[in-house]
């Protein structure tokens, strides 16, 4: 379980710093990146066990990244961290374009809403990455 490799993609540098400290102390190897384009570049070069992915990102959005990973059938566990209200929080009736986004979210192994309970996040990371 320990020494799993995590890539955290979030444009909030303070969040990245805080989570990096937590996951490092838990024994994970964790790299952080603030830009979607750069994240994709790193994912193509290096293997990770788990991707912690924000949705609203500069460069490529989290949805773009999910779409690419899905198309490439990339073997990686994914947990989406998002502050974005889910479509079902805004509307009961999804439009077609939103359906595609909802569909992409189901490609992730878990979706966690911000702000999150850290204990719950650690547990989810542990569960998801142990399936790898």
């Amino acid at each position, binding site marked *: 379980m320990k020494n799993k490799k995590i890539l955290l993609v979030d444009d*909030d540098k*303070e*969040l990245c710093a*805080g*989570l990096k*400290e*937590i996951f490092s*102390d838990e024994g994970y190897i964790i790299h952080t990146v603030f830009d979607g384009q750069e994240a994709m570049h790193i994912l193509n070069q290096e293997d990770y066990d788990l991707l912690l992915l924000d949705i*609203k990102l500069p460069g490529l959005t989290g949805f773009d990244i999910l779409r690419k990973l899905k198309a490439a059938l990339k073997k990686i566990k994914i947990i989406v*961290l998002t*502050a*974005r*209200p889910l479509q079902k*929080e*805004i*509307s*009961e*009736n999804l439009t077609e374009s939103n359906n595609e986004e909802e569909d992409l979210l189901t490609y992730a192994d878990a979706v966690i*809403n*911000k*702000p*999150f*309970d*850290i204990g719950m996040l650690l547990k989810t990371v542990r569960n998801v990455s142990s399936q790898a």
Partner: protein
Amino acid sequence: MKKRNPAENKYRFKEQNKILEKIFTNTNFLIAYLDKDFNFIRVNKAYALADGRDVNFFTGKNHFELYPHQENQAIFKRVVETGEPYLTHAKPFVYPENPERGVTYWDWSLQPIKNKRGTVESLILILLDVTEREKMEENLIKTTLALSETKRLSDIGTLAATVAHELRNPLAVIQTAAYNIRRKNKDAQLVKHIDHIEKKIAESERIINNLLNYSRIKKPQKKRIHLLNFINECIATVKTQYHSLNIVLKKDLKLFKDLIIYIDPFQIREVLANILNNAFQALQDKSGWIEIKGSLTPAREILIEVNDNGEGIDKQDLDAIFDPFFTRKSKGTGLGLTICRELVNLHEGRININSHKNKGTQVLIYLPLRMTDEK
């Protein structure tokens, strides 16, 4: 100027008369010529047709025996007495013998004709039916209002969703930082302050979720719903959260048995959950009862009544309870009842609240009993 001879004058007079006669007969304006006691002397074709009668029917009959109308009679009298003409636009009128025609609207002109001594001898009443125009205007106003209401709701929705998103990000950072401080902290005195931070993060989250609920207010997506099952489900969901309390739940919903109602189930569930939560919270500190009653009103509405014997609402607060962000609860956002009223209004229903401090509260939710969107 050359003086005309009498023969020429007579010819011109006849010509003019012919022209006026043609106008009188063929105009779309309704014209009636009346004596000073409001007896018809002559009416034109348009006037007679408007009431489905023959032109000759009117002559000799009295206007106000045919169309009794106190207010209009007073107007006619005033024109005779003062010699001043009367003009008005879009005056409503109901045919006394044909009330099913509904309200008709008329542009009016009542002109006095005076004799040489200056007293009024007869009247010319000219009318134009503007009912269609009035109805179109009315529809236009209704449509415009409906449009601006829809836009307002979607504006609130966009704003709330944006605010929610923008606040959730910094909250996540604060929560992460608090977690790190807690686990690295060796100072016991700091613990309670970290507790406070985490408590307030949870509170902020609740506010954001409420805002998102508010943003979900939109045009209802109505369906036919079995009312009794629906209300029972709502009650069951809310009840589970308060199972530890010693509260008696009384239900009297037998009048809703087999009743189907046309509502947006998500929206009305939200309303009922809100009202029931309020009732349970009003009883938080003591054992008591909540009563849910269903009935029908003569105006074809269903009435859902939620009574409790809880703490009640201060008299001076009652006027403000539907205002956004008004709350007396330590953890409330003050949007619950605002949302309820907005949702019930969208269903063309009403919500009323009666309350006595320390005695209890009564919430009345009225919803129209319909099967479709038609009235």
